[in-house]
């Protein structure tokens, strides 16, 4: 196995793990995403301690009860009279994983203390829990939309390239119109004809459809080019001469040659579409509160006081960077891999 294909495997498996782990968001999150603590708005990340006030060291981290400082809105102090050790597999709010209900959480502390790893938002909701549950929407939306755009693109591109003639002309002229618009303007234009306020589940499906629908043109153009050159290869012509049907030649000889490009496109498109969901939700045109998505969580920083005072509210945006890095690394490795194969 070459270094390039080893790299492809490594990055791809990391991404599969990342996307599969969002299923377990409810388990990893210590609290329900919509559980409010109205007495703790904008509390900073809870500090994990190892050393008590008496100087005694504990191997198991612990937290103190956080109470708001008298006479202030968003200042908090720790009540050091009692320590609350972090416990694992603790019982808490109910959640479901793939349809199965459960109430054990990976970690947590005894009530009334709270462990907010990434602080709380304006309603005192745990940002860490919301981030994990929001990943179910933001990350999955990107993957689904990219899948949709690519299936449309491959189908239309292959059709245009394979049959040529007026099919080719029609598909490519329409693709040109889609490419003539700056992509975010196009996305917003399509979004603008849909109702403004939609319930979250439908909004999610609509977003995936709209983003996927808007993005078909570029992959279609790429695939068309590949199909055009593939169908003139000798072995394809030979298969035709033996009487192979169109469908057979497409499935067996032409489409497999585009696999490398399709996978590379997938790795390039997913981060773009994750960002598209985040951007739309940020502008209030995507998934709406109280269901968390990274975009509508980040929208809180549009308030001036949030922007300036509570850095942890940026975490849903910052979390995008490592995800993007994984996808870029995969796209690079795939690119090198296919370049090696074709040379």
């Amino acid at each position, binding site marked *: 196995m070459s270094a390039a294909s080893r790299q492809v495997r490594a990055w791809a498996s990391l991404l599969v793990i990342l996307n599969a782990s969002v299923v377990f968001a409810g388990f990893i999150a210590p609290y329900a995403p919509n559980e409010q603590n109205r007495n703790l708005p904008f509390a900073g990340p809870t500090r994990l301690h190892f050393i008590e006030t008496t100087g005694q060291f504990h191997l198991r981290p612990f937290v103190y009860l956080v109470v708001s400082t008298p006479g202030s809105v968003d200042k908090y102090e720790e009540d050091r009279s009692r320590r609350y050790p972090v416990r694992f597999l603790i019982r808490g709010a109910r959640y479901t994983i793939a349809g199965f209900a459960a109430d054990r959480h990976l970690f947590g502390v005894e009530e009334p203390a709270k462990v907010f790893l990434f602080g709380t938002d304006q309603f005192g909701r745990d940002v860490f829990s919301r981030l994990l549950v929001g990943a179910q929407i933001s990350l999955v939306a990107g993957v689904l939309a990219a899948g949709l755009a690519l299936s449309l693109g491959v189908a239309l591109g292959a059709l245009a390239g394979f049959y040529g003639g007026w099919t080719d002309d029609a598909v490519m002229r329409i693709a040109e119109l889609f490419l003539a618009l700056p992509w975010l303007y*196009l996305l917003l234009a399509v979004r603008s004809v849909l109702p403004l306020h939609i319930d979250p589940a439908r909004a999610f499906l609509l977003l995936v459809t709209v983003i996927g629908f808007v993005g078909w043109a570029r992959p279609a153009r790429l695939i068309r080019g590949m199909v055009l050159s593939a169908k003139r290869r000798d072995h394809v012509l030979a298969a035709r001469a033996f009487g192979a049907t169109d469908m057979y030649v497409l499935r067996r000889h032409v489409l497999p040659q585009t696999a490398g490009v399709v996978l590379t496109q997938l790795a390039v498109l997913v981060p773009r579409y994750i960002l598209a969901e*985040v951007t739309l939700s940020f502008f209030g045109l995507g998934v709406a509160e109280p269901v968390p998505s990274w975009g509508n969580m980040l929208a809180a920083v549009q308030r001036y006081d949030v922007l300036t005072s509570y850095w942890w509210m940026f975490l849903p945006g910052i979390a995008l*960077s490592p995800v993007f*890095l994984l996808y870029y690394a995969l796209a690079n490795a795939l690119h090198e891999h296919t370049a090696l194969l074709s040379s």
Partner: protein
Amino acid sequence: MRYLSRRLAHGFLVLAGVSVLSFVFVALAPGEFLNEMRLDPRISPEMVAALRDRYGLDQPLPLKYLHWLQSVVRGELGFSFAYDRPVAALLWPRARNTLLLTVPATLAAWLIAVPIGAWSASQRGRWPDRVCAGTTTALLTVPELLLALGLLVVAVRTGYFPIGGMRSAAFAELREWAKVKDLAVHLFLPASALILVNLPVLIRHVRSSLIDVLAAPFIQGAHARGVPPRRLLFRDALRAASNPLISLLGLSIAGLLSTSLVVEAVMSWPGLGPLLLEAIAARDLHLVIGAVMCSTLFLLAGNLVADALLYLSDPRVRADQV
């Protein structure tokens, strides 16, 4: 010249196609602006009916489109219900502001990217190249939304820059020079955001195009004959690499406009982006179409400029067209 006029004609066709496409989309829309008026008890049903009649809302789609085309010819681009004004009057100042942001940002990004990319290519494999590659990769992973928000925090924390907007409150009273300075100060952060988003893509592209050229026999030969490396890099190699670079300029404009939309909205720069978002929130569909058409126009104009540059710089393009 035939080449350019053909590109121009093609651009017009695309523009017409986009307008038809957007009208078909809008026809599919479930709600429209006057629906909300109908719910308002202070407005009589007759009034709404009269308005519908006046703006031809009950006509079939082709007639609506003709109606709109007429208003385009009159230079109005349709009518905005939310603002109660012709769309064009709303659009032009905003379009000008978007250009005011994107054109200098594009120029600056290229001016920064070309030397860095060229230097990185000449140092290929050595540590300056590695540092450059690492930095661009890191920048690539920062989404523009986060970058714009981050720069806004910088503005608030340092206090050196205004927090969003385009002009100070006292702009009208300033003298000529002070006006320009005020605008530049407001322009700095949104333009920086645009530059930082575009820089990594440009640098990488410049680097890879130059690496291809530097491996070419004529460069190797010149090098062997003792042409100084710097002159070789910036005079000969850069000129030879101009074709892919200019093509990239055309391709990068679409991305630039999309990024600009986000940056404008986050930093409240009064360009096309915020106008489009407002229009969507108000379900003011004529204004949406106007803004979308305007962005398409920018994109096509940018591509045309790139085509013209290509025509001027690359004799092969000219030879192909004869």
